[in-house]
Structure formats: C-alpha cells, structure tokens
C-alpha cells in the first residue's frame, strides 16, 4: 500500500470506530426524544416522572460509554507489548466489560421502566395490573437473561486468561 492509501485508510478506520461508538449516542438521543415527548404530552405524573428517570438513566449510560468507549482504536503500546500480554489485556478488558455491564448499562434504566409500567397500570381502568405483571416479567426476563449470558461469557474468558497465566 502507498502512504497515501495508508493515510486514507487510517482516516476510514477512525471514522468507522467513531460511527460505531456514535450509534450508541444516536440511540440515546432517540430514547431521550421519545420519552421527552411523553413528558410533554402524557398527563400522568407517574409516567412523566418515569420518563424523566429513563432519560436520566440513558444519560448515565451515555456518560459511561463515552468514558469507556464501546469500540476503541488499537492501543499505543501495540508495538511494545508482547503477544501474550496484549492478548491478556484484551481478554481482561472484555471480561471486565461483561461483568460490569449490568451495573452501568442495564440497571440505570430499571427504576424508570418499573415506574413507567406502574404508571401504565394506574392509567388503565381495567386489567392494568395484569399488564404491569406481564411487562415486569418480560423486562425481568430480558435483564436477568442478559446478565446470566454475560456472566457465562465472562467465566469462559476467565478460563482463557487463567490458561495464559499458567503458560
């Protein structure tokens, strides 16, 4: 590859990384807009507060995504780090991300979602609590299932880290 091609490709890769990270922010803006509309138009105080909590939870998630960077460029030390150490650091990073995701990606939305379901139940004259129950079970299943899968994946990655540490 010529140097011009290298530089052009480097810019393409940087844009690709920025876009992958940016997708999360775009989704957050969409969520904020949607629940912002709910605050503006829906008369129920419970649902308005719930929408505010969801927007706050989304902002919390965005902040963590920004500081952690869901997709990151290759590290500066790529040439000074041996393959074992590089692989170990990649695996440790993946493991820690999987173990922590429930705390900063799933949990922040729970208070708002629960209150939103309660607000919907209160707003429905009949069968509201049945809707709440179905919604709660559905949301819990997704959150719990996601958490279990992440922990399993993290445990598998840990076995690979242990294999590296034992040579």
């Amino acid at each position: 590859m010529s140097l011009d091609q290298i530089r052009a490709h480097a810019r393409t890769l940087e844009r690709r990384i920025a876009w992958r990270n940016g997708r999360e922010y775009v989704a957050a803006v969409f969520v904020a807009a949607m629940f912002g509309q709910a605050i503006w138009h829906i008369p129920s105080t419970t649902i308005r507060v719930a929408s505010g909590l969801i927007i706050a939870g989304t902002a919390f998630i965005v902040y963590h995504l920004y500081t952690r960077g869901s997709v990151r460029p290759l590290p500066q030390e790529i040439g000074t780090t041996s393959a074992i150490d590089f692989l170990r650091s990649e695996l440790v990073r993946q493991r820690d991300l999987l173990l922590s995701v429930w705390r900063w990606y799933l949990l922040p939305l729970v208070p708002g979602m629960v209150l939103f379901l309660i607000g919907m139940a209160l707003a429905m004259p009949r069968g509201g609590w049945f809707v709440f129950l179905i919604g709660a079970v559905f949301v819990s299943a997704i959150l719990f299932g996601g958490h279990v899968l992440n922990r399993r994946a993290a445990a598998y990655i840990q076995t690979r880290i242990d294999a590296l540490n034992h040579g």
Partner: protein
Amino acid sequence: MTVPTNRRPAQDDLYADAAMAYGGALERLAQAYEPDPDRRRDLLQEIHVALWKSFGGYDGRCSGRTWVYRVAHNVAISEVTRRRARTPPLVGIDALESVADGFDHEEAFDRQRARERLLGLVRRLQPLDRQVIVLYLEGLDAAAIAEVTGFSPPNVATKIHRLKKLLAQRFHERAV
C-alpha cells in the same frame, strides 16, 4: 532497519522500509488468520495502518523485525478475539494432536493442497500457538519468536517441536 543516533527516522520512512522488507510476510500472516479473501484484505490493510501509526512511537528499543511482527500479530489477535463468537472453536496443540483432520484421502496430493491443509491446520490453532508456527515458518528462531510472543525460548522450542511432529504425522498419513 536501524535508528540513526542523531535523529529518530520519520514515521513514513520506517513504514516504507518495513513494508518493503516484510510485505510478503504480512500477507502470509493474514492468510494464517483469515481464510475469507475479503476479510483477509481488510485485516492486511488494518495491519499496515497499525504499523504505520505505531512507527510514530518507535524508538529502537527492539529490532524493527520484532516491532513489525508484534504489531501485526497483535492486530490479528484483536480481530480473532473480536470475532470469537462467529468462528469455529480454536484449539491448542494438545487438542489438535488428537483431532482427525477429515481430509479426503482419495484426492490427489499436490503442493497447493498441502499448503491449504497447512493453513487449515494453522487457522485452527489458538492465537498464540498460531503466532509461534507462523513466525517459525517465516524463518525466525526460538529467541526471536519469544521476543515477539512473550513465551520463554524453551517454551517456544517445545511448541515448534510438537507442531512439526504433528504436521509430519498428518502429511505422512496422507502419503501412505
């Protein structure tokens, strides 16, 4: 590739030298990590970009060859770990020694098929074992491989010995 004492060579110069000296080796490395031609091309491009960028921080603390191979293999490791869920399970040397290769022994044996079989075996290895054999096939000795991978030289020598034995066994079975 040497670092002049009075100045640090420009990033572009270092990259151009490396691409000239190791371009073929980098292509072979990409083949060992990626069977799909389009993805292989992408991987090779990423390796070249990473190499060029990395030379901005190269200060001659290791040989140019070691630097090039470290960057290239670390980029490939990044790709392998990212795509882990979508690739067939990778194995260590132990497991590969006990796994049948499923090759059709009726087919004619020629150089191209032998190369493809070799690549097929190599691609099934875990990243670090794969690095060892790829670097060995590029003519690096155990000490140089150890510098890139982080394994001890005796560990490298043992892995090479086992892999050579395994490959000889597989190809001997084919010939019989």
